[in-house]
């Protein structure tokens, strides 16, 4: 794999050693078991239907035989009775067969769809619970491929594999018993055919695991490339990246096609060898049986029945092989999905939640907080008390740790040591639902979801938020004017990621979103960077009213925003180096005053 363009990153591992492989296999089997267990009744019902079908199937040829052997001669003798009975009986078994198969299909369809729905819910809900640190490591592309193409391959197995598995297992067990009943030595020889089949299955399982794992990894890469290209299409086109991208996609698509081809060839070898073993068994059985008939130790009738059954004994093996194949393909997907489900949220819901006081006052305390993102320490030790209702501005150079403080307060991360407390309650003891009601964070990336402007503003307050509240929030940040100028006003579809709006307009919408959520603590992380000066001034004016009575933590690059704060904290290397009201700091000659001068120079 020469993929120099991807660059180097800390974690790239596709090869898996044997011990890990076993662990993965158990993990995915456990997942499959937990998915199928609630469906047990239906599975039993489905197997019952299949049994009925098999009985009808076995009865049919018997009735034809009777019709030919007895009915027709009798009819020729002028007694049409037996023939008519046989024919009627045959028609009835035919209809029963049809009904049983049809009912079975509905049943197994429901089983498959319910399993899928169950799994979709589990994965999606789990992904939502996982902490931001996980998402930043795992990335959206992988989440997307887990929930799309990996789930698809499981659906394939459920669609095509399950009935094959049931039918073939049933007939193999049934016919195997029948063979043993007919003649023990011959039956044992027939069963001996399962020894090479077992070995074959083991070989296939080993090889296919590896191959299908490769297909899953390649398709995930194809998906990432595809999604990134489509999400960054303007950059792709403006920089004539199309050709380079095409050659990258060619490589990835080629890798996937190679892995897929390899998997298909493996299936070809596996199914044909299974069939070969079956055929050799039949031939051996035939010779052995015939020899014993000639010896006189076997009757001709038993031998004939034996051969007929033998054929039907090995036929379902094809189905079994197909199931083994779709299982192998979905096993690789299950491995990845179960791995995702195995991740536990590092920022999880508390075991014993503590309720926040009602109403939340909004006093925030950073108590000896240490923090690092698996690297050097970002916050060596932060002690900070923000009284309820205070507006605090965080100032400092890139990398000073401003955003980290904001993320800790919004509990997107947990401190490595120490605690962040809201009204005296450790954030780790607050349920997510309570916390999100109390603390809302607006970031620079104003992500809009598909849907109307109103839907996007109402995100935090829920779809039941009355339109008047939505409008009021939009008015408060000065977004009402441009929204009403849109073709359908508040009901205008914002299109993919809000493509219909400009960057500044998107920020206003996400600002209104935060206001409508009406939290006790508001965290603004460069929430106004794309606004022009009039809009920013409108937002600042709004903030003055909105922030009264709320605790607020503001990170802003514009000093004008900083000036509305009650208190400014200047951060450097994770430590507070200056703390006080902006007016007082301006009067001093500290870092803030220097910053202010720089800002003025920029304006001049």
């Amino acid at each position: 794999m020469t993929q120099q363009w991807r660059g180097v990153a800390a974690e790239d591992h596709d090869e898996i050693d044997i011990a890990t492989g076993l662990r993965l296999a158990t993990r995915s089997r456990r997942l499959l078991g937990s998915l199928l267990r609630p469906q047990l009744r239906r599975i039993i019902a489905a197997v019952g239907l299949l049994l009925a079908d098999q009985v009808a199937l076995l009865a049919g040829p018997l009735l034809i035989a009777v019709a030919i052997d007895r009915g027709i001669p009798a009819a020729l003798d002028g007694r049409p009775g037996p023939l008519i009975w046989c024919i009627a009986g045959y028609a009835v078994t035919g209809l029963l067969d049809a009904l049983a198969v049809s009912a079975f299909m509905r049943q197994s369809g429901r089983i498959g769809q319910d399993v899928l729905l169950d799994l979709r819910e589990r994965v999606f809900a789990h992904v939502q619970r996982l902490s931001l640190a996980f998402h930043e490591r795992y990335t959206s592309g992988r989440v997307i491929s887990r929930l799309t193409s990996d789930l698809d391959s499981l659906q394939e197995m459920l669609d095509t594999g399950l009935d094959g598995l049931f039918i073939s297992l049933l007939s193999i067990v049934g016919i195997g018993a029948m063979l043993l009943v007919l003649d023990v030595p011959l039956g044992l020889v027939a069963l001996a055919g399962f020894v090479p089949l077992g070995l074959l299955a083991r070989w296939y399982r080993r090889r296919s695991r590896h191959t299908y794992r490769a297909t899953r990894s390649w398709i995930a890469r194809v998906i990432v490339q595809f999604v990134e290209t489509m999400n960054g299409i303007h950059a792709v086109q403006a920089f004539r990246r199309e050709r380079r991208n095409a050659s990258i996609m060619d490589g990835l698509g080629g890798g996937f096609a190679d892995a897929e081809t390899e998997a298909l060839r493996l299936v070809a070898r596996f199914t044909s060898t299974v069939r070969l073993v079956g055929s050799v068994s039949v031939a051996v059985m035939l010779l052995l049986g015939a020899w014993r008939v000639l010896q006189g130790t076997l009757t001709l009738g038993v031998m004939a029945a034996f051969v007929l059954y033998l054929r039907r004994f090995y036929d379902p093996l094809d189905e079994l092989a197909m199931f083994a194949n779709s299982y192998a393909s979905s096993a690789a997907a299950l491995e990845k999905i179960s791995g995702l489900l195995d991740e536990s949220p590092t920022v999880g819901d508390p075991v014993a939640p503590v309720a926040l006081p009602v109403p939340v006052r909004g006093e925030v305390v950073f108590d000896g907080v240490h923090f690092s993102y698996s690297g050097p320490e970002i916050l060596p030790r932060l002690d900070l008390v923000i009284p309820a209702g205070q507006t605090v501005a965080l100032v400092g150079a890139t990398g000073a740790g401003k955003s980290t403080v904001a993320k800790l307060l919004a509990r997107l991360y947990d401190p490595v040591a120490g605690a962040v407390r809201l009204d005296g309650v450790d954030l780790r003891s607050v349920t997510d639902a309570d916390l999100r009601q109390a603390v809302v964070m607006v970031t620079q990336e104003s992500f809009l979801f598909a849907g109307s402007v109103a839907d996007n503003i109402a995100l935090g307050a829920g779809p039941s938020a009355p339109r008047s509240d939505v409008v009021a929030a939009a008015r408060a940040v000065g977004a009402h004017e441009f929204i009403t100028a849109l073709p359908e006003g508040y009901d205008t579809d914002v299109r993919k990621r809000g493509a219909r709006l400009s960057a500044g307009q998107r920020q206003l919408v996400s600002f209104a979103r935060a206001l409508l959520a009406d939290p006790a603590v508001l965290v603004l992380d460069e929430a106004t960077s794309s606004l022009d000066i009039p809009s920013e001034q409108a937002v600042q004016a709004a903030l003055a009213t909105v922030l009264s009575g709320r605790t607020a933590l503001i990170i802003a690059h514009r000093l004008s925003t900083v000036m509305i704060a009650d208190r400014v904290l200047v951060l450097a290397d994770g430590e507070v180096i200056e703390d006080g009201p902006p007016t007082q700091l301006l009067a001093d000659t500290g870092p803030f005053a220097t910053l202010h001068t720089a800002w003025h120079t920029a304006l001049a």
Partner: protein
Amino acid sequence: MNPPQQSSLAVLRRLAPYARPVRGRLLGSGAAALGAMLAGLGSPLLIQRIVDGPVAHRDRSSLLLLSLGVLALGVVEAGLIYLRRALVARPTTDIEKRMRADLYHHLQHLPVAFHDRWQSGQLLSRAIGDLNTIRRFVAFSGLFLVVNMLTVLVGMGVLLTIAPALGMLAVIMAIPLVVLCGRYERHYRSAARRAKDQVGDLATTVGEAALGIRVLKSFGQGPQATQSFLAQARELRRTELTKVRMLATLWALIIALPELTLAAMLALGGYELATGSLSLGTVIGAVTILTYLRWPLESLGWLLADAGNAAAATSRYWEVRDTAAAVADPPQPRAPAQPIRGGLRLEAVHFRFPGAATDVLRGVDLDVRPGETMALVGATGSGKTTLAALVPRLADVTSGRILIDGVDVRDLALVELRTIVATAFEDPVLFSASVRENVALGAPQASDDDVRGALRIAHAEKFVDALPWGLDTRIGEQGLTLSGGQRQRLALARAVIGGDAGRPAVLVLDDPLSALDVHTEAEVEAALRRVLRGVTALVVAHRPSTVQLADRVALLAGGRIEAVGTHSELLAEVPEYRRILSAVEVAGDLSAVAR
């Protein structure tokens, strides 16, 4: 989206250009399937003869021979089964790969407006899920559909020859079967289409939830997002179950009709035997043939279903492929003026978003002289970004024209135009690739020196060198996270990289300083000053500091250029400009406070 109008066959025929180059292998695979089926049918006949012949007559000599015959048939069957699969393994994965590559190629050339309209999940599900459906159809169901239909036709023919009356019964059965299959296929296909569209919507929701995870987390919207995802997933389940029910009903018919026919055949056969117009052997033969046709007939049910799925996938695929690229190369591209001086001129440019009622730009006239830096200033939502996107033709003007050195941008080859014009966006998109790859985005042949040169101009060399693997460090979503200022400097480096084609003559910079703090802003500003030297530039600006970089400023308001002049001229003369760009009010407050 649209209900299916064409027949499945007509839709599936559009796969022909991809299938044609490998038709030999496909035919070979079909022949192998047919052969395997015949070999499978042959061995029971042979076994019958062994039991009736050597065993019954105690004939040891021919026993071995016939047994070997059975073995040989079995080996041939296994070999053909292998061939059937192995022959199409490579061709069909290649078809999938080529179709994906062509779709990807096409999507890369569709204008930004198309991408704004189409949710990414719908595109993704076409590129992955639908193509998988198509591959499996070509490799498997399509093949068997043909082989099995042929088998059924041949079987019917044989039946009609050996026992015309009994054969007629089979033909009579076939009529309702064909009619029902046809009707069912249409319904099934529209359900399959609905299911696939729902899969696409689901993928869109998944994508948004994954990309918007920070917002969802900040607002504690995880449970709600899960609920709405589930609602969609339940819709999909309902559609899938509709498909299952349709298939189950059809299957019941497909099983029941031949069985009833067989019963009728026995009755008619018995009657004809009694009247002496048929022999027993013929009746048994006819019944045996119909029994053999059981599997090919039954399989038609799900083969048709698969054909419906494949047709839905194919039509979804071509829907996108058939979308003409609205921004395309001119039929006869003109060569740009040599040497390129970089004069940029907008004449009466109008622009209207597709489907909108009014124009965003209503006659923009602007002249940027070669080498000049022009700042573009306007209120939020005034159309600055839209205007900037028109220069590299990310969208085309609705009317009017844009000239570079007197040549309409629409007369230049796109590659040429986008080599002359480089763009940096407000939101600098980084791809999950190395720093080198990200900077040399459009110039993959650029050397390390070129990349370093660009990084140096953009004031980014130092922080890149400090990354764990330097230029090779993977950045973007799947790699190292960079700060806003770092990302914007990389975007600048990307815009100025030279390479073989030389540096771009026209730079379009969309608010390149928005995400920066005061420290970094000063650094990037210094970088920008160097970047802007010697090129024509159109710089969208929100801030007085950015405007400072420009020689002149144009004010965009009401969809037109309201004023052009230097910063101080406009500040003095144009009240609207003062309103938008002057921080006097705030600064005044501040200084008052400071004093």
